[in-house]
């Protein structure tokens, strides 16, 4: 075991605040980012829960919920003629005004209209066969049960108006939260009415490739046409999340909170390491008298900061998973993908070693002559 690690274990009470500060920083970064990822994954639900390999939209579409009308015939023809494409399908999504049936008032809602058969590309996977069968009837809709109050309805059988068109609730789903407006699922024909899409227009053309690995080359070729914009499923999902993350300035709030957590962690860790060196000033002074160079001791302090960081991160990771689980039980989604955790670990380790670097100033005070009385 290295001298740094031996010292860390021997003086564990002294190092505990540093370890906890590092753990706190890592936990804060992971949970803050995970919370935002969870929050903004709501915007890409339709992309993530359907089976299309490629999404084709009007040019410059920023997010899946901000689609604009495109000519259905020409867009479908353009996509269908590509050699990689096995199937195409139209899909509609957009904001509409919802008029509450009781007490009046309006609410913005997000209409999602798709084909409803078993293996269609645009059918969201949480609509059961039974619900899809009920949606075949024109003007019927399915909403999330947690949105009933917001939409001013009591449950299945209620009527409301979307863009002045009557809509009947025929079913409820669970766990499809919304951000800007509650999701309203319906057939393509109902959606065309709710979104007032007249004539041969749609908002998206979806495509399935013969082989999903062909999606990127298909996207490249479609984008070269300049009449439409195409994305792979993953690209469009990421683009939708990032649009809302940056548009709402939530990223800035995240940055501040994470920076604050890092600052607290850095200061506490630095002070812990400083105090640890200061407590052994005389021992270090003997080593200096014996001619051991200062950089060798600095390396030892940096090794201590590395171990403090590593132990802190090891505490933070399981704690992050536990708290994410608690959040999930409370109905808040926290996503902790491996890339996010790796980034949180890397940032925290850099912070811990940076704190070690600032603690090196304590070694400047080490003077062998102080040992002579």
């Amino acid at each position, binding site marked *: 075991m290295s001298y740094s690690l*031996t010292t860390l274990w021997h003086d564990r009470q002294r190092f505990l605040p540093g370890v906890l500060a590092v753990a706190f920083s890592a936990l804060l970064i992971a949970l803050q980012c995970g919370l935002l990822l969870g929050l903004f994954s709501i915007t890409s639900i339709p992309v993530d829960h359907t089976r299309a390999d490629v999404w084709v939209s009007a040019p410059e579409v920023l997010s899946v919920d901000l689609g604009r009308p495109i000519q259905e015939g020409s867009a479908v023809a353009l996509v269908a003629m590509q050699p990689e494409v096995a199937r195409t399908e139209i899909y509609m999504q957009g904001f509409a005004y919802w008029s509450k049936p009781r007490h009046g008032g309006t609410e913005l809602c997000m209409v999602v209209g798709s084909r409803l058969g078993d293996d269609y590309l645009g059918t969201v996977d949480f609509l059961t066969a039974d619900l899809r069968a009920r949606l075949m009837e024109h003007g019927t809709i399915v909403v999330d049960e947690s949105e009933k109050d917001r939409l001013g309805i009591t449950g299945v059988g209620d009527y409301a108006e979307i863009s002045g068109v009557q809509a009947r609730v025929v079913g409820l789903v669970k766990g499809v939260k919304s951000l800007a407006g509650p999701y309203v699922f319906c057939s393509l024909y109902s959606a065309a009415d709710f979104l007032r899409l007249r004539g041969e227009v749609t908002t998206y053309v979806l495509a399935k490739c013969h082989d999903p690995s062909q999606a990127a080359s298909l996207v490249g070729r479609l984008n070269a046409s300049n009449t439409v914009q195409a994305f792979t499923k993953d690209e469009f999902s990421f683009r939708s999340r990032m649009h809302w993350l940056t548009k709402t300035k939530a990223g800035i709030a995240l940055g501040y909170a994470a920076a604050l957590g890092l600052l607290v962690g850095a200061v506490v860790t630095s002070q812990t390491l400083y105090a640890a060196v200061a407590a052994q000033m005389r021992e270090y002074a003997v080593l200096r008298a014996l001619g051991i160079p200062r950089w060798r001791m600095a390396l030892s302090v940096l090794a201590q900061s590395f171990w403090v960081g590593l132990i802190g991160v090891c505490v933070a990771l399981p704690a992050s998973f536990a708290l994410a689980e608690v959040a999930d039980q409370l109905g808040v989604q926290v996503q902790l993908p491996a890339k996010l955790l790796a980034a949180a670990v890397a940032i925290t380790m850099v912070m811990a070693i940076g704190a070690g670097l600032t603690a090196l100033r304590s070694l400047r005070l080490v003077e062998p002559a102080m040992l002579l009385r």
Partner: protein
Amino acid sequence: MLEETVLAAPTLRGRHLCRTFGDGETQATALFDVSLDLYPGQISLLMGPSGSGKSTLLAILSGLLHPTGGQVLALGEDLWKMSDRKRERFRLKHCGFIFQGYNLFPALNARQQLEMVLRWGEGASARQARARAAEVLTLLGLGKKMHLHPAEMSGGEKQRVAIGRALIKNPNFLFCDEPTSALDWAHGEQVIELLRNASHERGATVLVVAHDARIIPYVDRVFYLEDGSMREPEAALQAARQSETPSRLPGAY
């Protein structure tokens, strides 16, 4: 023994050493025109009352404190004309130190305290450092206590570990500042014996700064410092006669 070693060339020479602290009206002179020669294979004792400049002289001779005047020749090289880095390397290669407080790392056991010097100083491998540390501790009678931490050792044992830390490099010079003052005489005597062995058997040049006149019978030479100046050894004898245990003084002095 004394005759034989005095004939050898001195390994450490202090020439007209001066040291002042502060400046202007607050200036104080700690050393004034002090010269001395130290020889290999000899243990020398530097005595004097508190504030006489003993520790300052030891610090200057050992390369820890810059003199304001004079010259220190160690193994023929002018110590204070070297760059800081070169002097640090000189200390690393040639100097061992023992201080009054044991100054052992609380987290490390006896063996690790010694290993650290070799690993950090010479870049020795873990295996080499371990073997040499075990060898030195066994010679110091701590063979069965290598695994103990400072908190588990007596004062005498801790000072022996500190001596081991100073000796593990097999230094040419061993500088000891009040090495026995924190120990009872039985343990202090053991420590002085070990230092005597280091000089007589290993050929090291050993300089001990101490108050305790009971050490005199164990050393080869005595220097007496008073008010920053060197006095005749008779002064040391006189001082020793006034100490608590005059019966142990050697007739030669």
